[in-house]
């Protein structure tokens, strides 16, 4: 084991960090869209769709991300041949983004639903009593408060997804871990490479945590101001 090699590997690996972050950003973006739609379906109990949404969330919560990754990787091209699209040569990055997006979508849906249900009922009644309609009530009163409730869980979920992206290499994506594996094949210094990777992940997670906790403080700046005025 040669600790100094870490300094060699560090620049080589961190130059692939943007792929990891790209997967994360794509997953979070897809996840937010799915999450909001599913949460609305669950809250308004849309018939049939509500049942489907429940099964979707249960499935995503009930299977490892690795299995989901393989299911999409093998299943999606098979599905697409039905509509005569050849996806067998598509970039594996696409499958990874879709898988992590679907997985994020399920957890975001539950977080959003919990947060909207977590806003006190009196808030909605108060909004109605001053003559707001349902949309105004939702957009101006409920959602801003739900955002504050949802944020810490959302942050945890994003950090969890970042750590999950380390498995993307199993279907051949050239992210940091994928690059690390090719470096192992040529240099045979596996331990040093995994040490470097751990340091990079740890650094990114710490940055994300700091960023999230700053934004959380900013979001909560209106909390408790009412009781202060009393």
């Amino acid at each position, binding site marked *: 084991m040669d600790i100094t090699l870490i300094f060699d590997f560090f620049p080589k690996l961190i130059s692939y960090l943007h792929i990891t972050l790209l997967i994360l950003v794509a997953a979070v973006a897809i996840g937010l869209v799915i999450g909001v739609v599913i949460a609305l379906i669950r809250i308004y109990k849309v018939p049939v769709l509500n049942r489907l949404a429940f099964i979707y969330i249960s499935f995503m919560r009930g299977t490892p991300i690795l299995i*989901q990754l393989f299911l999409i990787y*093998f299943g999606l091209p098979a599905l697409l041949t039905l509509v005569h699209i050849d996806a067998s040569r598509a970039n594996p990055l696409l499958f990874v983004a879709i898988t992590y997006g679907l997985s994020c979508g399920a957890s975001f849906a539950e977080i959003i639903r919990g947060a909207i249900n977590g806003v006190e009922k009196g808030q909605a009644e108060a909004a109605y009593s001053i003559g707001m309609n349902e949309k105004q009530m939702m957009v101006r009163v409920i959602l801003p408060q739900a955002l504050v409730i949802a944020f810490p869980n959302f942050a945890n979920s994003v950090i969890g997804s970042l750590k999950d992206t380390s498995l993307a290499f199993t279907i051949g994506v050239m992210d940091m871990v994928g690059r690390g594996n090719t470096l192992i094949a040529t240099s045979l210094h596996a331990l040093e490479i*995994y040490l470097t990777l751990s340091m990079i992940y740890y650094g990114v997670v710490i940055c994300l945590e700091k960023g999230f906790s700053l934004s959380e403080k900013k979001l909560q700046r209106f909390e408790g101001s009412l009781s202060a005025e009393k």
Partner: protein
Amino acid sequence: MQIDIPFIFMALIEIFKALPLTIIITLVPLIIGFLIGIGITIIRIRKVKGLYSLANFYVSFLRGTPALMHIMLIYLGFPLLIDKLAVTFRWTFQSTSIPILLFVLMALSLTAGAYMSEIIRAGILAVDQGQLEAAESIGMTNFQAMRRIVFPQAIAISLPNLCNIFIGFLHTSSIAFIVSQKELTGATNIVASNNLKFLEAYIAAALIYWGLTIISEKVTALLEKRVTVYNRGGVI
């Protein structure tokens, strides 16, 4: 698209045989992790000098890196350490005689310890301070109060989190296939590549994991009813 439905059933039976290993890779780290977690929690709540910042770093580092890294670091690093010690102390022991499973269990135990310590800490802090004071007022020692009063309540409060971490580790155990363990995912890989039916095999694996998750959720709901019995009044 053609899906071979009968093959899914066949794969289901074949993959199911790997269940014991998955259960071992899930439960052993959780049990050892629970003990590590208690130790870390005591260090962090009592603010033991010297160990305190070490414990904080342990929890933060292991929670901040993917479980894959822990498995690979232990799997690659531990044999080097053993071999070095073997040379210095002239052991005849070789690191290659250690089964890989042991490295996986060690790595995941460390991971579990970090997550467990957060759960246990949250549980203990959630128990009303008055409970501890009441216990001390009837003459219990600190240890008795912890063991008989605070701890049972903390476990009851943490039960949903403990269920979540169980499901989380059930899913994390799938990573062990990367270091060629024949647990559920590893077995799926073998079944898939032997028959060249990847999609069907992974559907079967997904069904097994999904079923296990639903069962553990149901069991937790039952347990929760029993454990929180004390909380549903009776005295007043």
